[in-house]
């Protein structure tokens, strides 16, 4: 390898977007997204947590309790994603997620009232949307791991997407199953 006066080599291999400056720029962008993952997952967890006490039917309570346990674990997993890019989770993202969760509840209330539905079914419906949002956020983190050759990030995000995908079916089925009871019979869950 030879070098110019500036020290830059004039022969040798060429790096594409892997030099420290380019790389750090990309990691900054990934970090910003991982903050979004934390926010969306926290919002989902908060929604489940707030809904659960109002659910009276034992079978539904059981389903949602399991989902809440998983949601807490996934929230922890969201925070752990940062270490795969050598960064720390940002502060305040969970607080924002809690606020988002409450904002979702307001939206759910309005939409639920419009549908005439009663009780926590409105929140159940909102959970479907919030879980989809958080699942998408993890899936995007997986894609960013693939895009930057960071298999740890991909390997950490993918199982969460798998698990959330399975639970999404549960939430969707519960929401659809109970829709007639909530809307036509004004029954609480």
């Amino acid at each position, binding site marked *: *390898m030879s070098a110019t006066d500036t020290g*830059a*080599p*004039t*022969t*040798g*291999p*060429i*790096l*594409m*977007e*892997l*030099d*420290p400056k*380019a*790389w750090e720029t990309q990691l900054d962008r990934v970090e910003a997204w991982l903050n979004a993952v934390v926010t969306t997952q926290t919002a989902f967890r908060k929604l489940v947590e707030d809904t659960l006490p109002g659910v009276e039917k034992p079978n539904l309570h059981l389903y949602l309790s399991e989902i809440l346990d998983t949601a807490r674990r996934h929230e922890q997993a969201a925070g752990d994603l940062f270490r795969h890019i050598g960064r720390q989770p940002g502060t305040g993202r969970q607080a924002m997620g809690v606020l988002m969760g409450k904002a979702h509840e307001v939206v759910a209330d309005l939409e639920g009232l419009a549908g005439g539905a009663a009780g926590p079914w409105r929140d159940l419906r909102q959970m479907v949307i919030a879980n989809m949002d958080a699942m998408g956020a993890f899936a995007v983190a997986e*894609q*960013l791991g*693939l*895009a*930057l*050759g*960071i*298999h*740890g990030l*991909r390997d950490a995000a993918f199982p969460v997407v798998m698990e959330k995908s399975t639970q999404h079916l549960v939430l969707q089925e519960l929401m659809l199953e109970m829709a007639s009871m909530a809307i036509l019979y004004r029954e609480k869950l």
Partner: protein
Amino acid sequence: MQNGVVRVSQSAIRNLPTPVRSRVDPADVVVPDGYTVEALVVGLSFPTALCFSDDGTLFFAEGGSTWPTRPYMPPRIWKMAPGGLPELVAVEQLGGPRGLAWRDGKLYVSIKGGYYMRVARHDLKTGDREVVIDKVPSGGWHEPGGPLFGPHDGLMYFGQGSVGLNGTVMPAGYTVDLAKHPHVHDVPGQDVKLSGNNVWGRDPRTPYPYYVQTGPFRPFGTPARKGEVVKGQTFCNTCVMRARPDGRDPELLAWGIRNPFGLAFSPEGELYASDNDFEEKGDRAIAEDPDRIWHIRNARQPHGSVGTPDWYGYPDLCADGLPVWDDSHVPQRGAPPTPLLEEHPPWAGPAAYLFEPHTGLGKLDFCASDAFGHKGELFVCQFGTYAPLNSPRPEHLRRGFQVVRVDLKAKRHVPFMHNRHQGPASAAAGNGGLERPVDCRFSPDGKSLYVLDFGNNTASDSYVVAYAHTGVLWRITKQ
């Protein structure tokens, strides 16, 4: 200088920031005595194609959306003058570049994406881009082939692989086809009468995973009827075609080739196509189909004179000429196949060369120079298997991941560029060698072979992942 494109020391590529491929080291790549290996460019995202202009300028392409289709990375075309740094030439759309060719001062690019494969022509002096070939049915499982130009006739040759996985569109890889192209289907190159056999599968698009039947040359969920005739089209898939460089006078030479990804003319002017075997999975599983090189004999016929294209076997024959339902192709997993065609056109085989199943053939080039050695032999990229995804057989797990040279006349091949262990570099901890060779091309001076390495692309039992920024351009030179 392009942002993010920098020249570095040799030691820098042994300590890369991409954890999945943190080391690239020519010392880990094995080539015959008397040859040297260099890593020229490191950190490419899903590179798929390379070519040279007459003055020795190298062009290479990053594939955008590839295998699998996500993540989508910039589908860029680069040029690199001898001793220079890569400069961005163009960014394609809707998927990405798959093949490159230089002709009379213009760069031709085959592009996958959407329902149709295209060939675009770039005038690098004016910056103009025009699409010269359009409407070749695509949008599914397999890839465009070419373009390349006939040394004897100056015509542009190109191809397109099957949309269906193993004879029909199937749910196995729905992110590749069904999710984005729910209406996609194969198109035959000549009229075919269907057997009425269909393939049962679960529909991944629907709220309930409906059980549906799908026929050949039909969209997913549309069954075929016994005796039904599907009209052949010039713009079909599983095809090799040719046209004038501006796209006029297209002519179909061959069809029934599952994935004619690599096209190359021999020094004698004969056209050959690489092709990938059927997969041992899913709702029409086929075992032990050899990977193969086809001789496209119709390329020798005068332009415009090919009335009936040759047929090479898809969807009903394996490369050994046996039907897919033959005892030797019964799958260990998945549903065994039944005939899809009522009658078969005459078979254009046998293959010019058969490899073991699941070596995953990429592109190829003939050596035309004594300077490099092995003049007249065919150098073939073996991209490497997707087992265990595509085959349950343990013996398939490490096949490919190398460049081989083939003596077509003597019917033998030997590895030319490979790792010290079988399989990709990522199969051995800390190895900086070859991952998946996808394209290779001899330099115009005939002294060097350039090999494009797609990068880390790992298959599991259920899916495959690809990591961007892990591709490498290698150069092998005779000392």
